[in-house]
């Protein structure tokens, strides 16, 4: 039997190692909780269809993450999804006529919001609304459209407009 002292040292090392591993797991491989560091402002965008967008999804511009999706609500009066975008205050020169679209990262990737800069002189600020939006791509609608166009129906343009992805939301 080893002496009590060396048992205590080994036990202490084991326990510390265990807590170090736990600390590593909690801080290094998770990130969902800490969203936007520091100050931020929130703007709103209304979508016909957000697909499987989740709270916490990235808001990115030119591929750089500039914020997170803060809230997702459903507005009963206009039957649209209201998505709150929390954007880091460092990025305060986003033109107010920028367009927000829901995109998918890769084949198995999660959905995120991509913002493409507009050309306006005014910039987005707290409480603003992004009016130019593009809905999530719903595969079924796309297939319907394709099937319609392959079958050579003449009402295809109307169909495309009905399911169209770009539209003004105001």
């Amino acid at each position, binding site marked *: 039997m080893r002496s009590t002292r060396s048992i205590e040292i080994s036990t202490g090392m084991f*326990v510390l190692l*265990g*807590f170090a*591993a*736990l600390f*590593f797991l*909690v801080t290094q491989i*998770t*990130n*969902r909780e800490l969203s936007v560091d520091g100050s931020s402002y929130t703007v709103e965008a209304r979508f016909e269809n957000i697909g499987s967008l989740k709270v916490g999804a990235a808001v990115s511009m030119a591929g750089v993450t500039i914020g997170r999706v803060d809230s997702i609500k459903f507005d009963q009066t206009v039957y649209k999804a209201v998505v709150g975008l929390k954007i880091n205050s460092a990025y305060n020169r986003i033109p107010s006529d920028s367009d927000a679209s829901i995109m998918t990262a890769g084949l198995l990737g999660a959905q995120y919001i991509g913002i493409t800069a507009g050309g306006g002189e005014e910039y987005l600020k707290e409480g603003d609304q992004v009016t130019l939006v593009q809905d999530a791509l719903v595969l079924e609608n796309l297939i319907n459209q394709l099937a319609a166009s392959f079958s050579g129906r003449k009402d295809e343009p109307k169909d495309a407009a009905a399911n169209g992805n770009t539209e003004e939301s105001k």
Partner: protein
Amino acid sequence: MSQVAELASNLREFVRMVGAVVLFLLRMLGQIPRLIARPRLVVEQIYNTGALSLVIVMICGMFIGMVIGLQFYDILARFGSEDAIGVGAALGLLKELGPVVTALLFAGRAGTAVASEIGLMRATDQLSAMEIMAVDPIMRVAAPRFLGGIIAMPLLVAIFIAIGLFGVQLVAVQQLGVESNSFWSQMRAAVGVDDVVDGIVKSFVFGVACSLVAVHEGFTAIPTAEGVGRATTRTVVISAVLTLILDYMLTAVML
């Protein structure tokens, strides 16, 4: 007719055993206040069940991580999504493989040691001797081993998962050339603190189950060489089956 009677008596025996295990658990829990006054007993058992299981847990974690790296790479490469390997491996290790494999290793390494040690104490009348000296063997022998196992298990699982992720990273990033940044950033984006909590809750439950089985089997072992051997075997078998059943139930609740 005799078959029905046999079935009934088997069933009664099973119910009796469940009751005995629960009562045993309650008696051990009742000893916790007295153990807090003598923490050295528990520290010794954390050493026996935890620190001594460290090497096997680390080696197995490493190789499980490496094999996950290979398998996931092969599967994900078919979809052109090799970068998602970090997400798959981290969630798989955190929620399933970490707790379950560590519990099986724990049952094999620490559970058998505890069961055979207590069984041998029973066979050599050490437990009876304690009772004669007015020392409660549940307080002196069973409860410290049980508590030590419960404390050691989540720590072992955390170490297993951390080493496993290192193994995944070693194969996927260093060897197969998955891009390091997207490996980590996709993992961070997809894994939440709640996933870590899920894994820790599972490991705690498995720790209670495996430790309880080991201590109880040792305590109720038939006091012969054969009886101690049988108690050790039963410890591994019952722990493994119980772990997998509990795993299914916990997963169904958590998802």
